[in-house]
């Protein structure tokens, strides 16, 4: 596809943050499963997954903010391709 210059299409360093939800929810799940601590009497594995939701929202929000910060080498968004 030729129209790949739109601002949505470039990956930047801070996009690596988006790996964190996968690490939290999935990669750490087997380890967390062995923790028998029960905060507020709740199963820890469940509290962990719920906390992961908050973390995810926070991370996507952060990435969104960073995405909107102007970048010197970037054209204004939605600028038609020359």
């Amino acid at each position, binding site marked *: 596809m030729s129209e790949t210059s739109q601002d949505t299409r470039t990956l930047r360093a801070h996009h690596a943050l988006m790996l964190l*939800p996968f690490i939290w929810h999935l990669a750490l799940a087997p380890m967390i499963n062995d923790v028998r601590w029960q905060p507020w009497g709740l199963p820890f594995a469940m509290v962990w997954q719920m906390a*992961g939701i908050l973390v995810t929202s926070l991370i996507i929000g952060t990435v969104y903010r960073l995405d909107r910060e102007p970048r010197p080498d970037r054209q204004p968004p939605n600028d038609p391709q020359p």
Partner: protein
Amino acid sequence: MTASALLIAGSIVALTVIASLWYAARHRSAAGLNLDEWAVGGRRFGTWIFWFVNAGEIYTTFALLGITGYAWAFGAPAYIAFTSVSLACTLGYWLMPRIWHAGRSGGLLTQADYFVQRYQARWLGAVVGIAGIIALIMYVQIQLTALSLVFRLTLGSALPAAWASSLAALLMLLFVYLAGLRSAAFAAGIKDVLMLVLVVILGGTVAAKVGADSMLDVFQRVQQLHPNIGHFPGLDAAAGLDTTWFVTAALNVALGTWIFPHMFQLCFAARDADTIRRNAIWQPLYSLSYFFIILLGFAALLAGTQPEGGNLNAVLLQFVADRYSPWLVGLLAGTVCLLALVPGSLLLLTAGSIFTRNVVAPLREVGERQAVWIARTAMIVFAACAVLLTLTSNESLVAVGLAAYGAIGMLAPGVFFGFLWPRTSALAIAAGMAAGYTALWWAPARQLLSTALPGWDSGLAAMLVNALVVAVITLAAPRRPAS
């Protein structure tokens, strides 16, 4: 079930349908109803309406009845509800604006349109269209199962299952014929508010109903009674729902969420890419409400709820019918109807438009009037297929849901490679799909794969096979001259 409960459930459904039709009529463009308006809402959805229609598609009866049943029968495996939206949104933040952009610049209406445009092959569009329709029918099956459960609860279990699901399908078709995406979005908003109200009321009162002191006490008691419930593999170790299953199934759901044709198509309806990105920030928080849904499943376990025939999809309905007053039973029945009806009708609508546009139209000339006729006839056939599936299957809604994700996951390599790897060709994608479906549905291949990747969700394993085949063929193919 008392008459008052029936009355409440009936009024909820009727009022919502009428209000949503009125809403759509008011917003209809002066030019009349065209395909763009009907299928992608005129591509003008802002943040709020996009949120609601998106939530409407994610939080269906799969969430309410499926997850309570899963918590009741297995315990910890129900946590998959917490991960699916989170990870789907993380992925969606990256993927959905790309889908939106492809849709906007190419004037696309369906997911198969994307394949036609990206891979320059109408035949691939037809193949992908049929594959998408099959997965959609499996998803409609979930909604029909739920609707017929409600019918049998409200009208008495003397109603044969075949009648109940046929009636459910009829109701769904009626709603599709009358509504477009915009009415569905409005009805989705109402049903979401109702579901939240219901979940909060049920969650807030459930402790007292089962003799616990507080919500947290419900969790404590159920863990005392069943020490293994809170962690994997949960109550039934023989079911194979361990952490390996959890990680692979959750990943497969996240990868498949936007690949479902109706979700893919929904991206086209957004006003701009920013709407989609903002939605991805807030959407995960909504899934915290699964706390209450799992709570209800655990409470039903404490209460010793025994659904008819041990059917775990009916646990919540049975529990509420046993322990709550008729008006709440009515509220639940009405809400579940909407939870099934609204997403279900959108699924049929999507399947109908794909069939007309990507399967029939390439074969022969189709006029405007004929297109509508074909779409509507096709929807009846698809609904009938879903009814048949409902009658032959006794599985948990979650299991059916995961099977549907497995099926739709076979289109995922075509979408992801489509955006990431310009060299992939139509032939490679089709070969990958053939290999993937073989791995998924041909018993010997499936068995072989499950020995190679023990404990994996079969959908993710098959998607891996699919992606590998695409990669190998793409690398082996001679490089095309740069265009």
